């Protein structure tokens, strides 16, 4: 196998950019939602939980199509964002990031939620008796103790985002340099007669990235356990 070509590099770097932005933007929402699901009881909680998990079970092409209807130029939200804020998603890398963010969201939220649920609430009570307001309790006790889980969620979300294919290609198509990620590049290459070698190289890159992310997530989970035991 020869070296990675510049077209392949473009796809790899675009994938990284899309996945990093998707993960960073999704993280605050993920933490807020994880906290809500772990710590609050409210009407419609199980419905919200189901909606968050929907991208995991829905055919990705359906999610992509729904994104197109909502965030496309003529979509309800997409039209508004384009006209008033100048943010365009359709056929742009930002749209790829949105699709990846939505698709990876359930995987991102889950470890965050589990790590918040695992925190001893009596520690939060102790913080309260020491004069910490609810937001201070969150930032000085809950979040630091949940940090390994938050990082594990980010890593898993990132790994999922980098491999996302169906929703992305449905929503923003497969434009080299703009929306062609590693996955859609592989898809194009295996349909070209002599694309096998290039596809193979990208397949190896995908495996390395996914494996690295899983190992990192595992490492963060182990850190979480050590942290909760006060070592």
């Amino acid at each position: 196998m020869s070296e990675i070509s510049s077209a392949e590099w473009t796809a790899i770097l675009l994938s990284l950019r899309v996945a990093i932005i998707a993960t960073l933007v999704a993280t605050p929402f993920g933490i807020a939602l994880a906290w809500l699901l772990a710590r609050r009881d409210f009407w419609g909680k199980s419905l919200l939980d189901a909606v968050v998990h929907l991208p995991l079970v829905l055919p990705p092409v359906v999610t992509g199509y729904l994104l197109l209807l909502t965030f496309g130029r003529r979509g309800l939200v997409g039209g508004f964002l384009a006209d008033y804020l100048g943010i365009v998603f359709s056929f742009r890398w930002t749209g790829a990031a949105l699709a990846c963010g939505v698709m990876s969201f359930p995987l991102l939220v889950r470890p965050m939620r589990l790590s918040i649920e695992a925190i001893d609430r009596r520690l939060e009570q102790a913080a309260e008796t020491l004069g910490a307001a609810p937001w201070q309790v969150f930032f000085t006790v809950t979040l630091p103790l949940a940090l390994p889980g938050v990082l594990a969620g980010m890593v898993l979300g990132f790994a999922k985002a980098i491999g996302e294919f169906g929703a992305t290609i449905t929503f923003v198509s497969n434009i080299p340099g703009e929306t062609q990620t590693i996955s859609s590049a592989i898809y194009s290459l295996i349909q070209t007669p002599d694309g096998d070698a290039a596809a193979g190289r990208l397949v190896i890159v995908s495996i390395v990235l996914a494996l690295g992310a899983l190992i990192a997530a595992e490492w963060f989970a182990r850190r979480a356990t050590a942290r909760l035991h006060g070592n």
Partner: protein
Amino acid sequence: MLRVDVEKQLGEFSLHASFASEGRAIGLFGASGAGKTSLVNMIAGLLRPDRGTIVIDGETVDDTAAGIHVPAWRRRIGYVFQDARLFPHLNVAQNLDYGRRMNRLPADPVQHRRIVELLDIGALLDRRPGKLSGGERQRVALGRALLSKPRLLLLDEPLGALDEGRKLEILPYLVRLRDEANVPMVYVSHDAAELRQLATQIVMLKQGRVTSFGGVKVLT
């Protein structure tokens, strides 16, 4: 100093307790299940009474009729739990400093040194809670509560999780604390011997009701 008149229904258990005390060391005595912890949690603001009033140091912190409920974090109380509850992600020094930081109080190195010496925890400052013995953890928890400058200290069976030897190790610190720290305290225990050494007034609790109130004599 402390005036309590509260009712609380907790499942099958009903708590209806009333007492007022100017004592510097109030001993709350009763068997397990008598409602001691629920009562202390109400004084702390962690549990809300169904009906009644709680007045700490002249300030009404609970008055259900007037709709008053001051949240725990605004009550300026110190609470030492049976299970220390030190923050595992912070070392001892950071645990001790936590209350001061949350209340945005200026650093008070004199008081800090005094309490660290009083509790003999100077050698532990760099350690994580996971590396402390049960007795050491409880001493740090005491220091942490005191350094938040509370107007009332609540101690809920602080020796309950310790074996006999460790109890004897901590007891002198508690006596010194009562005499030197200048903070009134409510000391919860089911151990009459412990209370005889520490309390100046006793509130006896039985099945959610105050059955007697007075000097340490009521324990006999």
